[in-house]
Each structure stands twice: as structure tokens, then as C-alpha cells.
């Protein structure tokens, strides 16, 4: 069957000049587009992708597994949106990429790992194909309460619920916040996927189902305020759920910790160490949350914070965004974004790489192993660092 490809913003795709500013950070020190850095073909850069989408809309190229790979290798890190020189048009770049992926979903021509990801979410409510009953296992032994009428819902998301690294981070954050007197509860086995990646990967129907179900459940339980472990979940709750009627106040856990530091609820003890911080894309570029994690680290006496060369809105993505954490379309290898990012962090001379996202944590831990440098730079989540400083 012949498909007439169509996307909502088809009428402006031709406006990309492919000048290449989108490949770089603001000072041009290296390529800052994760998929371009990994693959090295112009087709994998934002400009290349944009030109190919136009060719595809015009019928000059066909839908193919390679075209799908090019689209799905995008890490949705928003660097292109940050750096494109065309005002207003730049804001639509991520949407155009998402729309093209949505069109592939509708045509049923998506890469197998993406299909499997969607299926797992649809069937199991999580990408790990694990039973929903196991979703709350991460909290066993922590004493964290099920959400009833607490001030905050602590939403941990799929990675925090099922992945070993994510579970550890979820425990650190949950325990720390509770110990600091935050009134919070968790959903445990009742929690389901937030759908951020489902949406970015173009399965907007499935995303709507997930979002509506979450909103329904949150409302039913009387949730007003949400603390997320994962910046990806925070992004969906803050940016996409309101379009479906959600009115919750949403915070990333680093925002809460920074607030507690402001209020002097946290009084860390001296912790002599050198730390660098990796800005997660969904915390930083997508939601402009740069200061809270730094405020937390700087509040610890004796802790020296050194910045990675590319930081804040110039930060280089770990490569896990855009569903690549699950689909691994960007792939491994020396030029994989996570390994590039880990080496960049290593260059700071820090002893600890602080992370604020369970997906980044996992990506960077794997990268450290691949580089054989786990002992040179320890990856710790923000809560873990604060806990350590409090226990000194």
C-alpha cells in the first residue's frame, strides 16, 4: 500500500538551512548532537534528519529500516532546539522529529526494539516485561508508606522501579526525603509508566492512554503534589499531562532537596571530595533546572564542585534519551554518547560524578565499565551524596 506521508508541520520542514549550528554547543568545542557524534553521518544530525524528512514527505526517499533508525537514533536531548539560529522555527524541531516518528508508528514501520518497547509497556505497563506486582519491590525494607493522604506522591517511574541502578537511586531519594521530614507516599505496584518515552517515540495513542490512566489514578487518590525520581517523568507530568487536564504540582527531587537546604532543614557535615555534575537533558535543557543540583552540592562543606567542559544548556547528553535507554539504537562503542560523556567527566579530575536521573546513572555506570575506569570516577546519585555528607 502506498502511504502519503504527512506530518503536522510539513509546511515548514524546508526552512532548515542545514547550517550545522544545531550539531554544536554554544562555543563549538565538539559535536553536541549525540546521534551525530555516535554515527558521524550528516544524516544523523538534526539538519540531516530534517532534510531527509522533507525528502520522505516529497516521496524522494521511501520509508526504510535505515530511515527509521536515523529518526529513532535521536536522543531528544533538545540541543538542536537550543542552538538552531532560526527564531521560533527552532522551537519546532523536536516536534517535527516526533511527528515523523509518529507517522512511522502509524505506518507500522518502526525498528523492532521500538516495537518491543511499546508492546512491553502496553502489555506489562513497563518496558522490562516484568509483572506489575513487582513494581514496588524496590521499596521493600525502606519503610516508605503507600500513598494515602501525604503531601507528596513520590513517583519513581519504570527505571526506578525495575532497574537495579534505578532502584538503588529510588531508595536513596525516598529514604532521604522521608528522613528529612517530607510527607510522601509511593504507589508501589499501583504505579504505571509515565509514558514520556512512549510519547517521544511517537506512540501518541498509547501515551494518551497512559497519561489518562495516571491522571485518573492520581486524582482518585487525592494527589496534588508529585516528586519524581526521574526527570523524564517530571517532563511528561509538567509539560504534557496538563494538556490532558492534569493540574498537579510537579517537582524533581533535586528541587525539593535544594529547598530544604534553603530552609536549613539539611545541614550537611564536611565531606572532602571533588565532584562534577552531569546535567540530565530532561532536567536541564527541557525544563531549565540547572541551579538546584548545584546548590545542593555547593552546600556541602569541603565538597569542591567542578564543572564538566560542556555543562548546563551546553551539556552533552548521555545518549539515553528519546527511548535509546531502552532501544539502544545509538548503540555501544567508543563514540557512544555515554562513553564520550564519561571521558569528559573524567577530564575534570573529580572523584565523583553526581547524577540526578536514573537513566543517566545507568548509562554512565555502563560507560565507566566499558572504559575500564569505574575506580577512577565513582558515579553517585545526588541523594546518595547528601546522605553520605549527613552521616559523616
Amino acid at each position: 500500500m502506498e502511504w502519503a506521508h504527512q506530518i503536522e508541520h510539513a509546511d515548514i520542514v524546508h526552512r532548515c538551512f542545514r547550517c550545522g549550528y544545531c550539531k554544536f554547543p554554544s562555543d563549538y568545542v565538539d559535536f553536541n548532537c549525540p546521534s551525530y557524534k555516535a554515527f558521524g553521518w550528516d544524516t544523523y544530525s538534526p539538519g540531516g534528519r530534517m532534510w531527509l524528512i522533507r525528502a520522505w514527505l516529497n516521496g524522494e526517499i521511501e520509508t526504510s529500516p535505515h530511515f527509521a533508525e536515523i529518526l529513532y537514533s535521536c536522543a531528544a536531548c533538545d540541543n538542536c532546539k537550543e542552538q538552531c539560529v532560526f527564531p521560533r522555527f527552532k522551537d519546532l524541531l523536536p516536534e517535527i522529529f516526533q511527528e515523523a516518528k509518529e507517522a512511522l508508528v502509524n505506518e507500522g514501520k518502526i525498528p523492532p526494539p521500538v516495537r518491543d518497547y511499546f508492546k512491553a509497556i502496553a502489555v506489562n505497563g513497563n518496558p522490562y516485561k516484568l509483572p506489575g506486582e513487582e513494581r514496588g519491590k524496590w521499596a521493600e525494607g525502606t519503610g516508605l508508606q503507600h500513598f494515602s493522604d501525604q503531601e507528596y506522591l513520590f513517583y519513581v517511574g519504570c527505571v526506578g522501579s525495575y532497574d537495579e541502578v534505578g532502584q538503588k537511586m529510588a531508595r536513596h531519594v525516598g529514604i532521604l526525603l522521608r528522613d528529612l521530614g517530607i510527607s510522601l507516599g509511593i504507589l508501589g505496584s499501583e504505579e504505571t509508566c509515565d509514558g514520556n518515552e512512549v510519547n517521544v517515540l511517537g506512540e501518541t495513542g498509547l501515551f494518551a492512554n497512559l497519561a489518562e490512566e495516571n491522571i485518573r489514578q492520581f486524582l482518585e487518590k487525592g494527589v496534588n503534589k508529585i516528586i519524581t525520581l526521574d526527570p523524564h517523568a517530571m517532563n511528561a507530568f509538567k509539560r504534557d499531562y496538563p494538556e490532558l487536564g492534569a493540574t498537579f504540582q510537579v517537582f524533581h527531587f533535586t528541587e525539593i532537596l535544594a529547598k530544604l537546604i534553603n530552609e536549613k532543614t539539611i545541614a550537611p557535615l564536611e565531606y572532602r571530595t571533588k565532584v562534577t555534575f552531569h546535567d540530565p537533558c530532561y532536567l536541564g535543557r527541557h525544563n531549565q533546572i540547572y541551579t538546584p543540583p548545584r546548590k545542593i552540592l555547593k552546600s556541602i562543606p569541603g565538597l569542591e564542585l567542578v564543572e564538566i567542559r560542556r555543562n548546563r544548556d551546553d551539556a552533552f547528553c548521555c545518549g539515553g534519551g528519546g527511548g535509546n535507554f531502552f532501544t539502544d539504537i545509538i548503540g555501544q562503542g567508543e563514540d557512544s554518547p555515554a562513553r564520550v560523556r564519561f571521558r569528559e567527566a573524567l577530564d575534570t579530575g573529580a572523584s565523583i560524578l553526581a547524577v540526578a536521573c536514573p537513566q543517566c546513572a545507568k548509562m554512565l555506570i555502563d560507560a565507566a565499565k566499558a572504559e575500564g575506569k569505574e575506580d577512577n570516577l565513582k558515579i553517585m546519585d545526588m541523594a546518595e551524596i547528601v546522605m553520605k555528607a549527613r552521616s559523616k
Partner: protein
Amino acid sequence: MSDIFKSLLGIIGERGVSNTPEELWFYSRDPGVLTPHLPDFVVAPKTTEQIQKVIQLANQEKIPIVPMGNGMALTGLVIPLKGGIVIDMKRMNRVLEVNEKARYAVVEGGTSQGVLKAFLQDHFPHLRHSLPDAPPATTIAANVALHGQGRLTQQYGFNSDMVTGLEVVLPTGEICRIGSPSLGPYWFSKSPSLPDLSGLFLGWLGTTGILTKVGLKLYPNKKMRDVELFVTDRVELVSEILYKLTHLEMLEDINIWFQPMPLVFKDNYHITIYFTGDTEEEIEFKRKMIWDAVQEFIDTKDAGFMGLGYMKGTLLETPQRSLAAFADVPKGGGFEYSGPITLIEFFPQYAAKVIELAKKYQLLYASSARVISGGHSMMFSISFAFNRADSAMMTRVKEALSEATEFALDMGGLPWKPNFVEQKMTLERMDPNTRKLLEMVKKTLDPQGIMNPGNWEVS
């Protein structure tokens, strides 16, 4: 799988070779208005030796080779006019060496302007190179291969004049070093006191070899930069103003621009004067010298300095991101220009021609000229923005630029980075003995005619 594809895989590896419709489509074109042509393969090597092996294979199989940086010449110089293998150089993106005291850098053949700029800022903040206003993804090797210009061209000449040595893979596969690196480890001179072999490659648009390493002069990066904008509505005075300014021998860069939109700029000729210093005193001294140099035009009320306000930051930015944004003025993502190298005294005639062409072809123009080497010449850009979705407009741009090149040649100018049609126009007017020499050089270096064929082809 074809034997050639297999051979390329053997040389470069799986992630460095492609013949998929997507890569072939993309690498068949540049952002300009010329018709695309598909390559047969695209490769992205990481080493000089890989390039050497690809060229040896291409010689054996008589396959065209087209080297590509970021494809930003806009004049189709990376379009594989006769198919073959496009070599994307951008994976060779390292700064290999900086000799601080001798003020030169050595970079790989795919190193971008942006990467060198950032590297110098990080490690040698008191040094800089002549950064073009083209996007930072453009490569240094491509820029010198087409006699590009940059921020320091007013002071030191074309960026190709700043080359201090080359490593080239010849069309027959030999790796050859040009200048001082041919005799020792230092990259301080591309020729003196040797015969200048760099001329066999600079300006040849990739038709005589592939530049795999470039030595490039660096210059003092002064602590401060400033800018003044001198404006006149009398086009005939521009060359005289420039003569006075270049006499100062102290300016970083001088650009002259005019455009009809927005209306605040209409009918005025804007001379942007850049200058640098290490102290406020030096800056103020130079500012006074600039004002003194053009005082007579102020006295006669023919010209004056314009308050910069919000524009100052934009003008001082390097590279100037706003220049790329011009492409989207007709909401169409397209921009192309003809940039003949010519005498400054012809500024009024060129300015009139731009306006005439824009009117005739119903196009939006913006023109900018850059003074070269203290006023020995200028690059006069005849620039048109276009809507990429409007094929009729693209055709009009093509025709307007072709007419601009005819005009430039009539005026004794030299087309800069000419497309293959403009090259033919140029060769037709060239002194026959010069043309013959060009042909001899090309045939000697590239006996099989595999290097970027369709370009600088005498016969």
C-alpha cells in the same frame, strides 16, 4: 554487495561506508540551488591512510572522488557531478598541534572552524585564527581549498595565505607534505624558501588532492574587541572611505553591507569597522584614529557614525549567527551568493548590479563586502535569500547569480568558489596559455581525472 562496496568496508569499516538511499540522497546535494547528483558511495574515514587506500581503489576502478567538509560553499562544489565516492572528512576533526611561540596550529583535514576556535579559547586564549562568518561546522581545509576569507583577512589576506603547510593525498594515492613539514617536524612555512607547491592545491576546489592536514597561522588574540558603524548614503564615497580606513593599518576587519530590509537600513551603505586592543587606552586611541580618518566625510555631512545599541553584540559575535538567519527571511531556509574578488573602486558598480538583479529577478538581496589585505581587493557578496519550497524562485536565484558572475568577469573580477558553470565561464575568458598551464597541472596530478570531476575541467 558490489566488490567496490566490499573493498570500502575493508578499508574503513562498517560504520564508515554507506550506499543506503538516505545517505546517497543527502550527499548528492548542498544547500544551494544547483541540481543534485547521486554518488555511488559515501565514506567517512578517520585516518590519512584510509583516504590513501580509498584513492588507490578509486584509481584502480576509475571512480570519481569528491572530498567534502560541511558542504557550505553553497556552489555545488561537493555535488558528485559524475557520481563516485563522496568522502566526508568530518571524522578527522582533531587539532594536532599548536606551536605557541611560532603561532601556528596543525589540524586534521576535517577539523571545523568551531572546534579550532574553542580549542584555542581553552588552551591558548591569547591566540586566534581567521574565523570565517560561515557556520562553525565548516572545515578549515575546505575553507583554504577555496581561498576562503575570515575575520583577519583585512589584515593578513585570504585564509589560504595563512596556510603554513599541508599534508595532501594526491589523486594517484601518494601522501605528500608541502612546505616546511616536507623537511622536518615543523609546520611554519608553506613555501618560502622552497618552490610554492601549495598553489597546486589551494584554490583547486578539491580537484588535485585531498587535504588531510593543514598548518595554519595563528595571530594575537587581543583582550578587547570593539566595533564602529560608519554609514553613508553616497555609494560613490565608499571606496574613498575604505582607502582612508585601510591607511590606518590598525583595523581587524572592515565589512561593508547594504540591504533593503528592514527599512532602517534601506539606501544606506554600512561600513562595519572592527578593531582590537589590550587596554582601554589602545581601544580609545584606535577609535580616535578611526574618527579622525573619516572626519572629512562627517564634516561634509555625507556620512556619520551610527549608534550601535542592540546591534553591537550581534556585530561582535564570531561567527555571526545572524548571518545564517538571513536564509530564513523569506521563510524558506535558502541563501546563496556569488562573491567575486574585485577592486574596491568598483564598489558602486557592483552595488548597482545587486539592486538591478534583485529587481529583475524579484529577489530579496543583502550584500556584504569584505576588505582583503589592506585594500588590495575585496570580496563582494551578491546574496539572495530564497524559499526552498519555491522552485521558480530557486531558478531565478540561479539565473541572477549566473548573471552576476558574467558581470564580475566583465569587470575583470575573479569569481570566488565558482560553481562548475561559472568555472567554465571563467576558463573561456582565461588567457589560453594560462588555461593550458592549468590543464597541464591537472593532468599531471590527476591523470585519471578522478578528483572532483566536473570542476576545473579545461577540456
